[in-house]
């Protein structure tokens, strides 16, 4: 039985889809069977984040309506061992939460992780994604508006039977934190009374490209994020990089 984790945020554009895709790839690389479900039926782009948009044949709706078998609808790629993607389609907003919950449960039977890429906001699409999940990861950036929305989302989660695994603070620029211009991931997690699963660095080479470079900081941060979620290890702090240089690395 898989861990079913919804990736939520409140505000759009903070990195839910990027986190879902990259986390899925790392967990797949660790040997787990991972199913990624795109629940952002309005702005579905998990397929694009994975570079698999040309491979889309079936979507969530086809599985719910029985046109495709659950396994048949998953898109896999040799580049991402262990990972299968269930894409969503524009115009499938009408999918009932109960139906979404049911197909998620089917995928959970044969996977180790089911990651659900949720839409922004706390409306119907959010309900669909979260009611199908057992756990939730909240993503924010260090910006005040994003943190406020994440906090509102945390409040909305209070009515669901889900465990909040913790907070991911994306797009952290350590220099800005040092100068006191930006708030650190630790401080944000402290204010929200959540466990910090990790900071992720602001990066020019975001997306899956950042993972293919073995020494990239994003890759390291994502591996640590996967370990924090998988085995409760201490989350990555972007300032660790600086410290490494200070004390001389290796």
């Amino acid at each position, binding site marked *: 039985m898989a861990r079913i984790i919804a990736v939520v945020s409140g505000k759009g554009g903070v990195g839910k889809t990027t986190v879902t895709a990259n986390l899925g790839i790392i967990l797949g690389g660790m040997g787990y069977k991972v199913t990624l479900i795109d629940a952002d039926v309005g702005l579905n782009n998990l397929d694009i984040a994975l570079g698999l948009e040309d491979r889309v044949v079936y979507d969530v709706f086809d599985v719910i309506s029985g046109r495709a078998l659950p396994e048949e609808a998953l898109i896999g790629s040799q580049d991402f061992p262990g990972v299968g993607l269930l894409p969503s389609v524009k115009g499938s907003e009408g999918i009932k*939460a109960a139906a979404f919950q049911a197909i998620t449960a089917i995928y959970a039977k044969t996977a180790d992780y089911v990651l659900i890429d949720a839409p922004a906001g706390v409306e119907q699409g959010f309900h669909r994604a979260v009611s199908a999940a057992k756990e939730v990861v909240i993503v924010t950036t260090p910006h005040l508006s994003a943190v406020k929305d994440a906090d509102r989302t945390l409040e909305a989660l209070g009515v669901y039977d889900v465990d909040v695994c913790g907070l991911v603070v994306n797009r952290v620029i350590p220099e800005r934190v040092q100068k006191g*211009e930006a708030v650190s991931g630790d401080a944000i997690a402290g*204010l929200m009374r959540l466990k910090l699963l990790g900071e992720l660095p602001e990066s020019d080479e975001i997306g899956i490209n950042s993972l293919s470079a073995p020494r990239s900081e994003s890759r390291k941060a994502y591996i640590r994020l996967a370990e924090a979620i998988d085995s409760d290890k201490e989350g990555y702090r972007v300032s660790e990089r600086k410290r490494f240089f200070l004390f001389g690395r290796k």
Partner: protein
Amino acid sequence: MKQSDPERRMAEALNRSDRLPEGFGKSLLNDVDRVLGGWFEYGAGDLNLKITPSGRNYYIEITLDAARLKTLKLL
């Protein structure tokens, strides 16, 4: 430790004082119990609330759009 300015702003923005007080649900349930004394189902649109007494406890099942949100047990 002194909070940096952006951090203080954030702390103020997350002030939770306007939230519902603890125990709000319990007093609501007491009212429900007093009035109905039995199980109770409430629906408004897609939101459904079903309260079932069990011994001295209550189970409240909340569903939205037919998907379960939460089952609460109240002592």
